[in-house]
């Protein structure tokens, strides 16, 4: 499965798709990236006259790249046009270190901890363009065909 196929199979679209590309992927983990556009809808309200990417959106970006893209890769042999992945976020624990401003590009690095009985749990971190740690934590979800 090529990296573009994985993104095509994602069940998201604008304005809630937070994956631009996948840089590396294996059975054990994934690295991907996303650039937050200046006109993302949430910047209007978070915060008033002071746009900063919400932590929940950073977490969503990490889940889309770190869990869902990786999960689609892990299930690749079972997927087809009619057999689509069913996904649900089940828990996350996240620590935040730096803000992400409009137009910043982030890189998400995810390492698989467990993938059994349809539950995928990963250690995920996000870096900014300078390579500084933005946030890190653990995300779990259920993913099956």
């Amino acid at each position: 499965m090529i990296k573009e196929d994985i993104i095509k199979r994602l069940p998201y679209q604008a304005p809630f798709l937070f994956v631009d590309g996948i840089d590396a992927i294996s059975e054990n983990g994934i690295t991907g990236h996303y650039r937050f556009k200046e006109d993302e809808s949430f910047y209007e309200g978070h915060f008033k006259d002071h746009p900063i990417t919400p932590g929940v959106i950073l977490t969503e970006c990490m889940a889309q790249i770190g869990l869902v893209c990786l999960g689609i890769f892990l299930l690749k042999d079972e997927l087809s046009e009619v057999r689509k992945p069913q996904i649900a976020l089940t828990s996350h624990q996240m620590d935040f270190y730096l803000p992400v401003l409009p137009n910043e590009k982030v890189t998400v690095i995810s390492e698989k901890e467990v993938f059994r009985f349809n539950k995928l749990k990963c250690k995920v971190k996000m870096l900014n363009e300078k390579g500084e740690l933005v946030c890190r934590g653990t995300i779990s979800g259920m993913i099956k065909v």
Partner: protein
Amino acid sequence: MTNDELITKLKAIIAPYVQDEKAFENLTEDTDFINDLKVNSANLVDIILDIEDEFSIRLENEDMEKMLDVKAAMLIINTKLKT
């Protein structure tokens, strides 16, 4: 291991994932993980992984599918421990 010892061990494993505390206090062999204790599907996987560690056994998909209540969990653990 007696059934009481097994239930005690199981209760310790299940405790962190329970949503319905009252059902947990009144836990019997007939208690259902999802319907009674309101455990979610991801935490049911956690319980199964913790059971594997506690009893040093390996559970398969078919065991997971059967492990819906305390009684079924006890039966599966006892069977695995004998083999």
